[in-house]
């Protein structure tokens, strides 16, 4: 057989072996359980302690109670034998909070059981309960315990009880690999390769399979005395592994292009900016630009968030704009001069007295300024 075909065959077999080995390691019991995954939406969850609201199909946990605790609970009735894992679908979960899965059983109704939950990249990892001695009988209720600190709200989209069969686990991994990873602010520095949290990253599986196949190719080549065919086999193995990983990436890229098209296709440059994530800021800066002189004016751009300072400045060019890329600092009043403009966008501590036409910020002495454009949370001033 041609060495390329042998290489391809070896890689396919090695990939299957590696997948199988992984499943042997992680499937906790029956490989093909009769039960299928049970899911509950955010609307079915309720607060036993703590505070929050249901918003856009998610339960938003906004505050803990006086004891620094929130409990989000759910009545259930399923056999513990059929379901070996509980997966909370939550995002923006505080990394430093103490989070536990609670449950009650019909076997010991008075006993409240719990296991700690792990947070990774703001998500809750599924809790595997197959080896927990308290996961027994029928499960009458589950809950999520949150104990502070809670720096900001987090969202729970639902919860699922999983039987953890082989097909389900394999399916979960494939879903993780092929989960759409849209472009974000961090994409320019790193590509995750699917879901934020992955139990088995695709490159690891492919590399393991390639290594196994390469070992087999070495053995084959040495035992058959056809060492010259080894490089062709190795090359085929590696190209096949690379191609599989690349298919994932190109599929993701295609979905990104579709998302971009839905948002921007058919629009001119201005409309694209209005449709972008900083569209509100762009719309405000458009009004500001309409009031600025034709030639480049000296403009100071301030905002609490560095993003708005930088983006606001970007939309203001070619005016001669100054912003602080790193610090939320206002310009020293002594450096301002008559005719300068000050753009304020979502910046606390800036006060304007329209009667006296005086402007002040952060405890500085008031200066004379004219309000040129005003919107809730945003304004343009001309310094006098």
């Amino acid at each position, binding site marked *: 057989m041609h060495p390329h075909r042998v290489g391809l065959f070896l890689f396919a077999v090695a990939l299957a072996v590696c997948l199988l080995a992984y499943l042997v390691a992680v499937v906790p019991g029956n490989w093909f359980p009769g039960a299928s995954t049970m899911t509950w939406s955010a609307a079915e969850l309720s607060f036993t302690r703590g505070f929050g609201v249901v918003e856009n199909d998610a339960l938003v946990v906004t505050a803990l109670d006086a004891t620094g605790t929130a409990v989000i609970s759910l009545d259930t009735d399923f056999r513990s034998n059929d379901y070996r894992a509980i997966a909370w679908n939550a995002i923006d979960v505080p990394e430093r909070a103490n989070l536990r899965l609670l449950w009650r059983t019909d076997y010991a109704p008075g006993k409240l059981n719990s296991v700690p939950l792990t947070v990774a990249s703001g998500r809750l990892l599924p809790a595997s309960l197959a080896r927990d001695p308290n996961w027994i009988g029928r499960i009458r209720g589950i809950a999520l315990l949150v104990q502070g600190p809670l720096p900001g709200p987090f969202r729970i989209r639902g919860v699922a009880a999983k039987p953890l069969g082989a097909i389900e686990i394999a399916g979960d991994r494939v879903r993780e690999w092929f989960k759409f990873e849209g472009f974000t602010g961090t994409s320019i520095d790193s590509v995750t390769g699917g879901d934020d949290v992955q139990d088995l990253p695709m490159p690891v599986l492919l590399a393991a399979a390639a290594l196994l196949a390469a070992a087999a190719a070495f053995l084959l080549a040495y035992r058959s005395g056809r060492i010259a*065919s080894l490089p062709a086999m190795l090359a085929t193995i590696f190209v096949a592994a690379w191609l599989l990983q690349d298919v994932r990436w190109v599929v993701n890229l295609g979905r990104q292009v579709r998302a971009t098209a839905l948002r921007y296709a058919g629009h001119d440059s201005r409309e694209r900016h209005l449709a972008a994530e900083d569209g509100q800021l762009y719309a405000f800066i458009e009004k500001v630009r309409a009031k600025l002189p034709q030639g480049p004016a000296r403009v100071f751009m301030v905002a609490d968030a560095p993003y708005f300072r930088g983006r606001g400045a970007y939309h203001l060019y070619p005016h001669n704009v100054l912003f602080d890329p790193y610090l939320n600092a206002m310009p020293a009043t002594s450096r301002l001069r008559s005719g300068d403009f000050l753009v304020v966008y979502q910046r606390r501590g800036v006060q304007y007295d329209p009667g006296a036409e005086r402007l002040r910020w952060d405890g500085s002495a008031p200066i004379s300024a004219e309000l040129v454009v005003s919107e809730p949370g945003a304004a343009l001033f001309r310094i006098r």
Partner: protein
Amino acid sequence: MSLVTLFLGLLVPWLAGMSLLLAMPAQRRLSERGELAWIAGTGYFVGAFLLTLWMRALSRMGIDFGGFAIGVPLLAVAVGGGYLAWRRAANALPGTIRGAGRALLSPPGLSGVARWAWRALLLWVALRFLLLGVEVSWQPLFPWNAWSQWATKARVWFELGRIVPFADSADWFAADGTAYFDAGPHLPPTLPLLQVWASIALGRWDDALMNWPWWQFAVALSLAVYGALRTLDMSALAALVVTFFVSSLPLANVHVALAGYADLPLAACYAGAVLAVLRWTTTRELRDAVLTLVLALAAAQIKAPGIVWAATLVPGFIAALWPRRGVKIAAAIMAAILFGLLVLAQTSLTLLGYPFHLAFEPAWGALAESYFLLGSWNLLWYGALAATLLAWRDLVLPPLAPLTMIVFAGATLLFALVAFPGTRVAIADQTSVNRATLQFAPVAIVFAALAFRAFALRCARAGTGSELASA
């Protein structure tokens, strides 16, 4: 209409660069394998750099930017260089271009499954560039530094029709309106000028369409890699596979789709310079030597770390010039640099009032996660490690030794950036490790491919079969 002028505007520097290279005296004919792809790929790098030099010259001379002032001289270069090339190889040129077109569908030496594999891979590469092209056309300027320190200059220079200085905030106040401010006032003007030219060709400011040069860099890099590998006697299919690896790096693709950062153009020019060194080691042609210098200069003019990357070419040159002792000399230089880093890590020297101390704070865990677990690099680092191990006996022997020295120097630089975070501020414009890696990644792929080929040749010599000819 504006899209047509944009297309022509993007094409002109590319043609000018190709013509310049073709006009230079060279013994290798355009019809030789890989030559056309090499000229087409590196031609863009040269043309784009030439374009920005000309725009800088215009600004110095006080001539406002405009389609005529910029485009016509470049067109003249394209036509003049093309004419010279035509005069030298009038008979060969049409045949070469026709031959290249035919070879695209049916490369000589490939038949059956191999030919279909070639076509499928070519289509796969083309699909990627199509998707990236669509994304470039629609996605407004998105990544942070792109709108806070690069395109800021492009916007101002486009609107004012000339280069005006950018300064930090203290100098901005002192300049009294004659200087502008952004988050990176000291960055080189090369990339913003490419955006200015695209905007001039388009006839308006459009911060999506002005980013087509990033797509051009990616395509040109692929062409250059394919052409160089063919020149270095790699088979057509193997060269296409390596080109596919280079073109399919996810993080490199992101830098096209979310254009505006300097890392991909820097990676392309640096890779072009390294490939030119490799060609020069076999051809000893003046053109390849000049090209190396021009591309090294271009890399340095794209972003400050380009100067350091250009310096990594020196060990390669040494190893190529003195094959017997060059490797030892180059290795000694790099060992001295490593020793210097260690001394700086262990001491707290102060020279002329400046502290010279490097804190040793390696983030190996994050690096391993990024290189081996996440999706930024596909399987590049697994492959590079494997190829290095397989070819360890050939690494410091000709013809691989010059490239090994360059890669070793590049790896040393990456090591310094990872282990001594202070170096990222000092020499790499605070570039993240992943983006610094991107600047090196195409070279790493070429190295892995050539190392693997050295291993394959060794196997072919050791074995009895002849299957290796196809590897």
